[in-house]
């Protein structure tokens, strides 16, 4: 019954199909019509081909390029769930279907049958921040609608609700009629909404006195009413499609068996990936590249007890030297590392810190005038955040700055972000792996779990290479790049088992070490264990073996030795 015809009809005129469904004699019950709608449309667009047929709402095709009441899909991050839910008339007096922005003509007497009122949830969703281009492409499909020249001129409304307001993005008011599924959505969740796009005033987003209660006579003027509210793109959701935690899904462990194809064995891919990262972004430092790899596959494994991604500090990373040749370059230089990460990770964002950014930008979402303004750190779960301290110079950190530093430190320490509401704060769980890049022997602003010194040549030319523009990056072949991505995305979702034998070994190891060296503490054990686990993940191993443990330990020891040597050498200088 759900043939291609049906699909086509849904695509052409979703409102009509909605009415058809409502009037469908078979579906007698309207008790939970929204649920029925969700099931119906999920069924229709079940196959990925059909799903791809739905035009995608994104930066390339912003809301203005769609006719009113088109069917669109919108992969978005839930930004704000605080707008109060709305009531709508689910059934007009003539028995027609209500909701989904369908207009009803008002009755003469204005009488409303309140038993037909239903609730719909309203929230604000934005295009996924920190999403890398290749990930977007993979999810959107290659179907790119003819890019009209005007798209670049699209100015999103309510840009304060996007974590990075200066970047191109889309913000849409979302109305969800199936309230059960709406309840599940939380801030920073990523889902794809499929629904009917219209333009509506954002009644729920901002507050107005209950003006309809105020007596209006010819003399008493009506102050702020609803008419002053601006219109925003609104998506009336038919159904919601969820994504996996990693947004993309890749097998773990990698399906390629080591002996079948030497070329695609995880260990081989891993080593190539490290070489490529080291070569392109880290001045040839393979150790640093390997740490970078581990940090970017770390994730929150458990909150109680806290097994959080370790924060990494890449020290001795030179600041960009102001070379005269690049006069018209932007004032803040992004290390090439930022671009490299974006090539291989689905979700990554670079936060170039400077005093100005720290003192002026809001890192933490804050509710002002009952509108939740986004903060820089309102990022989807699974984002790798690259923080560069190269732009920080001497100066004063004002209160906002201190709070911002504190917020980011809190994310690193506890993976929670406290949103500010009037008279209260609400802590939201985050899953952001932080990599701090700093010039000195340790980060000026943050305490991290692990710090790794970059051992790369420090001559101006080499420094310039660390900040080379995108065009100069040598991309590996498409096939290799895909293998890199598979490795990382797979590892992010992977699981490692620890055998009895290994854990016994680790315990003995710790006790022995402590007897040799008093300075070894339980913190060291904890750090080593989390590193070993990541090490195993990066190799797509299913079990943490004694071998991997030893390798990881040696790897960590090398880092500690390097740290010690660089700090002493810099101290003597």
């Amino acid at each position: 019954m759900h043939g291609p015809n049906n699909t086509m009809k849904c695509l052409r005129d979703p409102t009509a199909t909605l009415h058809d469904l409502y009037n469908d004699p078979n579906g007698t019950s309207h008790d939970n019509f929204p649920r029925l709608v969700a099931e119906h449309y999920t069924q229709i667009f079940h196959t990925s081909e059909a799903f791809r047929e739905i035009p995608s709402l994104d930066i390339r095709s912003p809301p203005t390029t769609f006719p009113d009441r088109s069917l669109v899909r919108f992969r978005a991050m839930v930004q704000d769930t605080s707008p109060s839910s709305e009531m709508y008339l689910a059934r007009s007096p003539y028995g027609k279907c209500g909701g989904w922005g369908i207009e009803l003509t008002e009755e003469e007497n204005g009488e409303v049958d309140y038993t037909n009122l239903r609730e719909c949830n309203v929230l604000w969703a934005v295009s996924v921040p920190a999403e890398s281009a290749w990930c977007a492409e993979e999810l959107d499909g290659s179907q790119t609608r003819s890019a009209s020249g005007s798209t670049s001129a699209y100015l999103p409304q309510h840009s304060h609700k996007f974590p990075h307001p200066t970047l191109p993005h889309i913000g849409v008011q979302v109305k969800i009629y199936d309230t059960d599924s709406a309840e599940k959505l939380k801030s920073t969740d990523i889902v794809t909404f499929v629904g009917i796009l219209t333009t509506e005033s954002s009644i729920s987003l901002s507050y107005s006195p209950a003006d309809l209660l105020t007596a209006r006579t010819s003399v008493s003027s009506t102050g702020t009413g609803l008419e002053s509210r601006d219109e925003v793109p609104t998506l009336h959701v038919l159904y919601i499609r969820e994504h996996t935690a990693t947004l993309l899904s890749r097998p773990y462990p990698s399906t390629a068996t080591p002996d079948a194809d030497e070329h695609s064995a995880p260990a081989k891919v891993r080593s190539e990936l490290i070489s490529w990262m080291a070569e392109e972004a880290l001045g040839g430092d393979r150790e640093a590249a390997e740490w970078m790899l581990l940090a970017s596959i770390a994730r929150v494994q458990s909150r109680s007890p806290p097994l959080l991604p370790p924060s990494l500090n890449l020290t001795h990373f030179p600041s960009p030297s102001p070379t005269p040749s690049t006069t018209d370059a932007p004032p803040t230089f992004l290390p090439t590392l930022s671009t490299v990460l974006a090539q291989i990770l689905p979700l990554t964002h670079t936060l170039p810190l400077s005093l100005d950014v720290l003192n002026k930008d809001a890192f933490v979402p804050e509710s002002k005038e009952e509108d939740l303004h986004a903060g820089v750190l309102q990022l989807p779960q699974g984002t790798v955040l690259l923080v560069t301290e190269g732009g920080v110079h001497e100066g004063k950190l004002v209160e906002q700055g201190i709070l911002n530093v504190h917020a980011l430190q809190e994310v690193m320490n506890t993976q929670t972000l406290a949103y500010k509401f009037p008279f209260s704060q609400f802590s939201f769980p985050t899953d952001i792996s932080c990599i701090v890049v700093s010039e000195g022997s340790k980060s000026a602003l943050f305490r991290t779990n692990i710090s790794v010194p970059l051992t790369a040549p420090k001559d101006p030319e080499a420094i310039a290479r660390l900040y080379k523009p995108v065009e100069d990056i040598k991309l590996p072949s498409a096939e290799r790049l895909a293998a890199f991505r598979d490795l990382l995305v797979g590892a992010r979702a992977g699981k490692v088992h620890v055998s009895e034998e290994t854990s016994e070994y680790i315990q003995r190891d710790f006790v022995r070490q402590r007897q040799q060296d008093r300075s070894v503490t339980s913190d060291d054990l904890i750090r080593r264990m989390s590193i070993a686990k990541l090490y195993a993940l990066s190799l797509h191993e299913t079990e943490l073996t004694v071998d991997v443990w030893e390798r990881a330990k040696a790897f960590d020891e090398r880092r500690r030795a390097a740290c010690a040597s660089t700090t002493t050498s810099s101290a003597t200088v």
Partner: protein
Amino acid sequence: MSSPPQDFSSSDAADVDMQDQSVSGAPSAQPLFFASTPSAAGTPARQRVGTPSSAPDSEPLDFPTTPTSSSTLKNRRGDIHSSLSITPVAASRRARRAQGLQDGDLDSDGTHLSMPASSAPALSAPTVPSDEPDEIRAIWGTTVNINETMQTFRSFLLDFKLKYRVAYDRDRGVRTRVLATPEEGEARLYVSYLRRMRQTGETNLNLDMANLSAYPPSRKLHSQLTKYPQEVIPAMDQVLKDLMLEVADQDQQAGMAGMQGQQGEEEIADIMSKVYKIRPFGMPAINMRDLNPTDTDKLVCIKGLVIRATPVIPDMKVAFFRCLKCNHTVQVEIDRGKIDEPALCPREVCASVGTMSLVHNRCEFADRQVIRLQETPDAVPDGQTPHTVSLSVYDELVDVSKPGDRLVVTGIFRSVPVRVNPRQRTIKSLFKTFLDVVHVRLGSGDRLGLDRSTRTTGGDRVPGVGGVGGGADDEDEDNADDREQGMSRREEMEMKLRELSQQPNIYDLLARSLAPSIWAMDDVKKGILLQLFGGTNKSIARGGGAGGPRYRGDINVLLVGDPGVSKSQILQYVHKIAPRGVYTSGKGSSAVGLTAYVTRDPDSKQLVLESGALVLSDGGVCCIDEFDKMSDATRSVLHEVMEQQTVSIAKAGIITTLNARTSILAAANPIGSKYNRNDTITKNIDLPPTLISRFDLLYLVLDEVDEALDRRLAQHLVGLYLEDAPETGGQDILPLDQLSAYITYARSRMNPVITEEASDELVRCYVILRKAGDDPRSNEKRITATTRQLESMIRLSEAHARMRFSPFVELEDVKEAYRLMREAINTSARDPTTGEIDMGLLDTGVGRQQRKLRGDMRKAVLVMLDGSAGGTRGVRWADALQQLESQSSVRISSAEFQQVIRELEQEGLVKVVGERERRMIRRVEGA
């Protein structure tokens, strides 16, 4: 909805005509004033803002008035938009009474009661005897008979007795108040409230809806009120007014004080002119997320936090129009939020078009305020942002709450269609929702708590008499909601907790449950556990409130130790468990963050005081991590907090003292990141001794190497970090919520008293501690224990007794307190040079050994100067130091030497001349 007969006068008309007595003193009007004027009986003169109470004087009194033909003037309550009009039940009876009045005291009564000629239609009212069977009025679409409802409510008000509530509560298994005397249970509660209302001039009666259910005949009123508040509340208002008059009448006849003769008449007239309001409350509060369309126009109760409130909005209730031509006046009442301006003069002889103009000062306004109520953090589901709802509050409830308050509101849920474009007839089938509030209760004692000090006293009282009604005490009122919701569960919990407290190993069990993921550190956990229970605060009640002298019962604990010994983790745990835990990091918090700061509210442009961590944790535990990294300014605040338990603020013109009755749990790192065992604790941490001495317990948490311990630690950690589904150890521990409940229960219910035996033991232990300072070899005493330690011991013993749920502090409590103290002193106050305990180390930062050394040095210096080496020129600084060095068996630090010389100089015994290397020390002659 029955369409009302043309029988009620507008109260405005009455208002006008009250001054009009001489014109219309017609005795025939007598019976109508109460019986027939339904809810509208209130004159606007009683309303607070913008009421034209004085207006009549300025207006000609003889305007012909036309009440609007379409509607009766309805109840003037802003919160109720009822279309129902009520015929009072007690008409005949009261008519009789009024008749009597007429006869007896025509002048005084008549003046107030008489109705004007222009409101003549009203006269027909009393002729409709409401108790006639054919007059049955029902709420539209239901079988609810309004007359019956009124009758029932009347009997409820008259006959409700406390004993019903007690029995009802007992049936539901709710903890109920024990009545002092059987008579108390027999007292007619609401009748006494009515009297009190008359005496105080109060017009609001708060009605605990649980009482409706408790009184058997009125049981169904509860559901009627919930389902049809718009109809039932006005009916109840009417009954209330009728009864007010009746009771006043009875009292007058009984010759009660203040109700005799003229005075009584005036009282009655006063009652007549008022609008009486029933304000129901006491429903179980629901989450605002659960409000749904089926609640529309029903009575609901929600909790929340006020985040903003508009200024008072004058809400026009009745518009007053006057014809410019013939001066004919018309009143138009608000109808569905609109006022229809008459297009032409209704007087037939005039009928001019467009001559009606609004006379502002004759219009009637009501106060209205829109409040935005946000969900409280505890009500928000995990990972969700809080929702908000709009509240409309009216009349007396305006300005009762301020932003930041926690409220429990009872109100009618409304949905109003939204017209996206006001000029179009299409609506997007969208509805706006809000609450018309009928009752507000300010929350108290909650986590965020109401900061009384920011309020003027008396100004924020929720209006109305009979707040509690049910004979429950104040504490019960606070718990009203808990009481409603799953009382049995609470009971069960209480039972369980009591059972737990009887376990012999409860102390160990609780300590183990405190931070299960942290290995060992048993004594530290026990100390913190007792801190959570806290000692009893003394003389808080007798001392005369916040200002009175008060001995703190809060126990402060400081953890000092090597990095990586999970100090922060312990703090995090405590923060989660403590009833009002606040966690802050010394590094991140400025003085402002810890105390309170003054900001300007963006909406009201008023200065408001926002509380910081310390004030927020009033009555709880404030956990401060990185205590040593705190700025000096912040630390100085703590001096006050830890002993005085207050925070003083003088900022932006606001000078105030806020209560911060908080226990402090702090963690600090040693100066050199590793603890130096050869130094005293004050040298190891960068904190002033004055502050350190304010901690009852100071624990050194040091990292020791021990194979067996290490092995178990490793096992613990490996299990925690490498397993896929980590568990917090299979040990027998209490879950977090139970532990928290246990502590909260003990804190709120247990106030142990020290027994004779325990006090003897306290004295004995104190003497032992002090004696430990005696050193037979030296005449100088080490200070081992000070009165501070005695106080600490008392607090700890009390906390221990609380932990056992014991009403008395007994011997074992003191023994354990002494043990904990000794352990803590052992680790923290041991002088590293002598190995002896010396509290002076903590109190002054200078240990006995050091003091002795200084004394010796001092003597040596004086001897040296007096001796031959001195002469009149004195001794060179460096030489003196060298000489002393050669004499002494221990190394003399130059800092010590400098200190000694400075002291001598201050005493005027020596004099130092010259600069730097050429400094000379001279003996002052004759000194």
